[in-house]
């Protein structure tokens, strides 16, 4: 793999520039549509776009910038889980003690964000081997975004999954119906406020069965 070897070593400083350039061309085309971005040099690019520019971004990426390869669409619920972390590891219990119950502030991740729900998608350019993650904020009272199916047909199933798991509606989607869950299922399991019942109905037997180590009492007192 001599050819890949050389390109790889030369590419590491160069890709950064390439990503900046890519970001510049996205910004140039979408203008106000781009509301945030983040570059990890030599590694990755995040672009946060306005909700109205979501479909245009896909068109731009596919037709002009050569991002033919569709990777996935999914969503993030940025609200910290109101049920704590429902952890089962003893380590965690010992370290953290009693878990905080009061709601914690919402913190968004890379490339920023304003709202609780964020839809993100990833597409790749198989020629330049660059990938880009596109994010879009959805207001809490209107969880809707345009579908990507006309541009990337592969988005179909990913959007169905996202719809049933997060309750995010993709307007213009050809058949928004359940994909994994039974048809009569209610609720959106991947939302943070949807309890993982297995953790609440029955405690993890691993915790119950652990006997107190000699000396544990002394530490606690």
């Amino acid at each position: 793999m001599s050819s890949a070897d050389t390109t790889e070593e030369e590419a590491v400083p160069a890709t950064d520039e390439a990503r900046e350039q890519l970001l510049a061309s996205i910004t140039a085309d979408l203008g106000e549509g781009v509301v945030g971005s983040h570059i990890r040099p030599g590694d990755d690019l995040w672009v946060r776009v306005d909700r109205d520019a979501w479909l245009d971004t896909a068109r731009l990426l596919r037709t002009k910038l050569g991002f033919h390869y569709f990777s996935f669409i999914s969503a993030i619920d940025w609200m910290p889980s109101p049920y704590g972390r429902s952890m089962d590891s003893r380590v965690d219990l010992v370290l953290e003690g009693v878990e905080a119950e009061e709601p914690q502030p919402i913190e968004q991740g890379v490339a920023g964000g304003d709202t609780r729900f964020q839809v993100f998608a990833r597409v790749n350019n198989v020629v330049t081997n660059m990938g880009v993650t596109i994010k879009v904020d959805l207001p809490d009272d209107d969880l809707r975004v345009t579908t990507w199916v006309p541009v990337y047909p592969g988005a179909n199933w990913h959007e169905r999954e996202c719809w049933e798991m997060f309750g995010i509606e993709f307007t213009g989607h050809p058949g928004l119906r359940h994909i994994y869950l039974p048809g009569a299922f209610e609720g959106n399991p991947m939302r943070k406020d949807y309890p993982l019942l297995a953790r609440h109905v029955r405690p993890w037997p691993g915790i119950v069965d652990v006997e107190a180590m000699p000396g544990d009492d002394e530490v606690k007192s």
Partner: protein
Amino acid sequence: MTAISDQQQLSYIAAQAADARVNVEIESEGMTLNLGPQHPATHGTLRIVAKLDGEQVIKADPVMGYMHRGYEKLTEVRTYPQVTTLINRIDWLGSFANEVPFILAAEKLMEVEAPPRAQWIRTILFEMSRIANVVLFLGDMAVQVGAVTPVFFAFRDREHILNQMEAVTGGRFHPNFDRIGGLKDDLPAGWIDETHQVMKKMRRFCDEMENLVMGNEIFQARSRGIGVIPADVGLSYGLSGANIRASGVDYDLRRDNPCGMVHDQTDWKVWTHPDGDSFARFWVRLQEVRESTSIVDQLLRTMPSGPIMAKVPRIIKVPAGEAYVETENPLGAMGYYIVSKGDLVPFRVKIRSASFSNVSITPWLLQGVYVPDIITILGSLYFILGDIDR
């Protein structure tokens, strides 16, 4: 995109014509055939609802979820080391390969790098799980088109690989061996020589399959020109791995996006096939097993000595951030998008599994084909239900 070959274009047009013909000719009521969820050709519990006109498919719609285990939700309540146990079960035929992208993504966030020897062993095991997985495909594809014998050879020879995996990891199917910052253990004594022998056996198996299955005229008649995926369509559906390489797209993450593994230290070739049909997918996978054996052999020869674990804290807290790592798994590109908030548990893990995208093309691909070809196409797309349903 890369130019579409004439043959691809012709078969694409033919498929579209068949499509149009079906739509015009339908006057009868048709028959709805449920393939699955319990059906020998669906590798588990995929169900395909096919509307038929005679034996021709008018419309096919896969229904999945019979094996949905909700891994994305479950990862949110497990520490990083615990997650690998879960994700081992996604693609259960090449389990070790599932762990690698997750561990690499976590390592990227923690900014640690496994020592060279760990990277070497990781790559070797990664390739061996590919061999274990694809060897079974080679036998299984023959079963799908009606030859029952090759799959026994596949099971027989996969056993050698599993034995080697077991010798290192202690687990035949679910090793759970990869750790953030390295590996659990070093190789046992004598393993390298044995593995060289096993790789020889695998190459012999490939020759056997080439003679027994690929050279068979009935197999060729059944698979050539069946289920043609043009490169552009395949990419927009997110097809990856051998499925897209069989459509002539020269894209292999092992070469194009090396991350934490040492494929670039070896001399190997990315195989592509211009046809994009079922036969091409079989052909590409067969060549890939050969390449994998050669990669393993080369890595075994050049393996450095040294530690197998980098310095990582005993209790792993991953710094806040987001990272996406995609690797070339046996079934295609598999990636983990990890969102961390500096905690013991990941805040959100998006699992991009290869089969989910690979199978999402079936409604498009199955239009206008005949019932026997459904099986050929599904067999050649090669999905594993755990990888679709997660």
